[in-house]
C-alpha cells in the first residue's frame, strides 16, 4: 500500500534521511521507531508530499506522490507532530473546513464531521474553540482531521507525544481500532509503544534504516544476545574449541584471520559477562591476547537511546495496585 524507495533528503549539508526503503501492506500498522533527530518527521513529510525528496520515490496505493500529488493526497490522512489546528475555530468549523479542502462531497460533510467527532471522542467539545481545549483534545481533533475524508493511508507523527498516561492508552486503542480499514504508519521514540500498537517495526537512526521486523523479534534481538570480539595470536580451531565450551557462550564464529592472528566473534547469552573468562582462558592456554572488546551492535546502541520507559504502563500498574498498597512495582 505504501512503497518507499531509496529515499534521501538533504538540508544543505545535513543528511537527514539516507537511502531509506520499506513497504507497508494494506491494513497494517507500521511503527517507525527511532531516537530524536533520526529522520522520522522528515520521512513522513516526504510521504505526505509536504517535502520533496532529494532522491528516491514514494508510492501510495500505487500512485507516485511526486508525479500525481493531488491523487496521492486524496488517499492520505496526516497528523503532523503538532496538530495543525486553527485555534480560533470551533471543532466543528475546523473539521468542516478540513473536510472541504480534502474533497469530502458537500452533502456528506455534516455526516462525516459527526462520525469522526464521535470516533475520536471530541463530540462533547464540538462547539468549543480549539485554542481553549487541552492538549489531549487537540491531539484527538488532529486525528479526527486526518480521518475526515476516510483515507486509505494514515500517517501519524508521534501521536502520543505530550499526552498524559490515560490519554496515551486511549489514543493507542483508537489507533489499533483503525487497523484493517486503514493502512497506518506511526512514528515514535518510545520503545514499548511499538510493541503495544504495531504489527511491524522499522527502526531508523541517523537517517538510515537499521532494523526491520515484528516487535517481539526485535525485542528478542535486543535482550537475547550480546557479543564480544576477540583477536588472538594462535591456532584458530583450538581456540574456537576451547572458548565454545565456556559457560555463557552460545557460539564462536571466525570473523577474520591474517597469518597467525584470528578475530572471533563470541555470541553470549543474555546479560552474561564473559570477558574475564575469555581473557583468562586465552592467556592460560599460552596464546597471545591482542584485543578484546564488546562488539557494540549498532542496534543496541540505538535502542539505548530510545525511551524505554512507558508512561502508560506505569500508570496502569499504579491503578492496579489496591488503595494503600505497598510501593512494590518491580513485579516484572
Amino acid at each position, binding site marked *: 500500500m505504501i512503497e518507499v524507495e531509496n529515499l534521501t533528503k538533504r538540508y544543505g549539508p545535513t543528511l537527514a534521511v539516507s537511502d531509506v526503503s520499506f513497504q507497508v501492506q494494506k491494513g497494517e500498522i507500521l511503527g517507525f521507531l527511532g531516537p530524536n533527530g533520526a529522520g522520522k518527521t522528515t520521512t513522513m*513529510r516526504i510521504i505526505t508530499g*509536504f517535502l520533496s525528496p532529494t532522491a528516491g520515490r514514494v508510492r501510495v496505493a500505487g500512485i507516485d506522490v511526486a508525479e500525481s500529488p493531488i491523487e496521492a*493526497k486524496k488517499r492520505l490522512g496526516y497528523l503532523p507532530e503538532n496538530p*495543525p489546528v*486553527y485555534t*480560533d*475555530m470551533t471543532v466543528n468549523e475546523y473539521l468542516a*473546513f478540513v473536510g472541504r479542502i480534502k474533497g469530502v462531497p458537500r452533502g456528506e460533510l455534516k455526516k462525516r464531521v459527526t462520525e469522526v467527532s464521535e470516533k475520536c471522542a471530541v463530540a462533547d467539545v464540538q462547539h468549543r474553540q480549539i485554542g481553549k481545549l487541552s492538549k489531549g483534545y487537540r491531539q484527538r481533533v488532529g486525528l479526527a482531521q486526518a480521518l475526515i475524508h476516510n483515507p486509505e493511508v494514515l500517517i501519524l507523527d508521534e501521536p502520543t507525544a505530550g499526552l498524559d498516561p490515560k490519554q496515551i492508552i486511549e489514543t493507542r486503542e483508537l489507533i489499533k481500532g483503525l487497523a484493517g480499514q486503514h493502512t497506518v504508519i506511526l512514528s515514535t521514540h518510545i520503545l514499548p509503544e511499538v510493541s503495544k500498537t504495531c504489527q511491524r517495526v522499522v527502526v531508523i537512526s541517523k537517517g538510515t534504516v537499521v532494523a526491520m521486523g515484528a516487535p517481539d523479534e526485535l525485542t528478542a534481538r535486543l535482550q537475547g544476545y550480546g557479543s564480544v570480539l576477540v583477536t588472538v595470536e594462535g591456532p584458530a580451531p583450538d581456540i574456537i574449541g576451547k572458548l565454545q565450551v565456556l559457560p555463557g557462550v552460545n557460539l564462536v564464529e571466525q570473523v577474520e584471520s591474517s597469518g597467525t592472528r584470528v578475530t572471533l566473534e563470541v555470541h553470549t547469552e543474555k546479560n552474561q559477562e564473559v570477558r574475564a573468562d575469555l581473557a583468562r582462558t586465552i592467556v592460560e592456554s599460552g596464546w597471545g591476547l591482542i584485543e578484546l572488546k564488546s562488539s557494540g551492535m549498532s542496534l543496541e546502541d540505538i535502542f539505548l537511546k530510545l525511551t524505554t520507559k512507558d508512561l502508560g504502563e506505569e500508570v496502569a500498574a499504579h491503578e492496579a495496585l489496591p488503595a494503600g498498597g505497598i510501593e512494590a512495582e518491580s513485579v516484572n
Partner: protein
Amino acid sequence: MRNILAVAGKELRAYFHSPIAYLVMAVYAVLCGFFFYSFTATYVVQTFRMQAMGGMGMPNMTINDYVIRPLFEGVLSIVLLLVIPLITMRLYAEEKRSGTIELLLTSPVTDFQIIVGKFLGALMLFGTMIVITFAFISTLFIYGNPSAKPLIAQAVGLFLFGASLLALGMWISTFTKNQIIAAVVSFAAFLLIYVLNWVTAYSSGTISHVLSYLSLTTHFDGFAKGVVDLKDLVYYVSVIVLGIFLTARSVEALKGRV
C-alpha cells in the same frame, strides 16, 4: 473553484474573528474620514469666499476637482501603504507559525488554489475599505452635485492599487513565521516602490524613466483624474500576477527546505 472558495472563506473568517479586520477598518475609516473632512471643509470655505467675491471663477471649482480627486491622489495611496501590510502579514506567516501550513500543503488542493483563495480573502477585506471610501464620497451627493463619471475610474484605480499591494504583501509573508516582521518588511518595501518616482525629480535619463514607470503611484494618477488608461491597467494586472507568481515560487521553495 470549491477549494479556492473554501480557503477564501477561511481567511475572511479569520480576519473577522480576530481584532485585525476591525482594527484595519477603523484605522482606514479614521484616516480617510479625517482627510475627507479637511478637504471638504476647505472646499466649502473657499466656495463661500468666491461667492462673496461675486461668483468669479465659480464654474471651474468642482467638488470632483477639489475634494474627491485630492482624496484619491494624495491620501488613499499612502493610507493603503500602512493598512495593506496589516492585512497580508498573517497570510502565510501565521500558517507557518502554527504548523497549519502542513495541513494546507498535504491536502488535495494545488498551491495555486491556496494562493488565490488567500488573495481573494484578503481582497474581500480590502473591499470593505473601498466601500468605506465611497460611503464618505456619497455624502457629497446629498449636499452637492459632483459628477459621478470619474468615480468609476477612481474605484477601479483604488481596487487595482490595493490588489497589487496585497499580492506583494502576500509574497513577503511567505518568508517568515513572524507576522510583525512580515508587516514591517512589507511596509518598507511598499514605501520604497512608492517613492521610486521621486528619483525623476533630481535625475533624468533612462533609469529615471524606468524607475518612474515601476512606481505604483505614477500609474495611479490617471485613475485619480478619472481616466482609465490601458497602460496603467496592464501595469497593475502585471504586478498582481507577478505577486501571485512569486508567492507560488516561494511556497515551492518551502517544500524543498522547510
